[in-house]
């Protein structure tokens, strides 16, 4: 069974490639939104998957959008107490993509003045895909796992106690 974030990414991609004609504005907007939620749920999945299956659905919604934005901004600037070294390029890329994707999603959902084009939705799906890939890359490296943990902890508003 696909994970929710994989399904959401596939959904986002399918909305910009209709079987006939050009995608409608609603499809482009929903695609951008689904791309963001794909990345958001990937992060929630990584966090909740640390716990037993009975707890996961309770925990998966703990990070919130504003906190993720703040966390990404903090980590990009190397201002998190959870990381003692400079953030890796991969982490910086994840954070930058999350911030850009969240901004796109807010605009796609609420800015009715904006007329969307396929290039906007394609950018969003590509960013979501890159975020998911980069999270997997960091998770695959023991040395880098702590960077994803730091992003999650900051997204949960848990600051590092003074060392």
């Amino acid at each position, binding site marked *: 069974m696909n994970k929710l974030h994989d399904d959401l990414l596939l959904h986002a991609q399918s909305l910009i490639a209709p079987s006939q004609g050009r995608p409608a504005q609603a499809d482009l907007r929903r695609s951008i939104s689904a791309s963001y939620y794909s990345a958001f749920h990937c992060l929630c999945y990584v966090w909740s998957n640390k716990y037993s299956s009975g707890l996961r659905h309770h925990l998966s919604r703990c990070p919130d959008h504003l906190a993720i*934005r703040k966390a990404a901004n903090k980590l990009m600037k190397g201002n998190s107490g959870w990381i003692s070294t400079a953030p890796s390029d991969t982490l910086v890329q994840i954070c930058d993509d999350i911030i850009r994707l969240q*901004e796109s999603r807010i605009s796609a959902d609420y800015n009715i*003045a904006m*007329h969307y084009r396929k290039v906007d939705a394609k*950018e969003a799906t590509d960013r979501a895909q890159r975020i998911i890939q980069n999270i997997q890359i960091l998770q695959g490296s023991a040395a880098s796992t702590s960077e994803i943990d730091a992003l999650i902890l900051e997204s949960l508003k848990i600051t590092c106690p003074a060392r």
Partner: protein
Amino acid sequence: MRNSEIIEIRDRLVALNSELQGGAVFARSFYLEDDAVFEGPVVHIIFVTTESEVDDSLETLDKFCRKANDQLGDSVSYIYCIYRTESDYQADFENDNWNTVLRLVHEQAA
């Protein structure tokens, strides 16, 4: 945002366009918003491509936004970039929704 800050952003985008001269992409206009998380203004730059299609690879899109960041980085808290062909720009941004919001990088002569 103060007028002097807007002028500074415009000047820096003019410098960016000089840097991009000869290429297929340039900064046409921008708009500013306050952002509570970043504790300062963020700028949205609309780039126009002279090609019939925008090269939509992330590598290309990020390259121009990075160049804009190199020029403007210390004037704003964050930079977002939007890409349009010339005809799509006219259709999407040269209308009443945007006339009072957008600022042209190169102001037209009166």
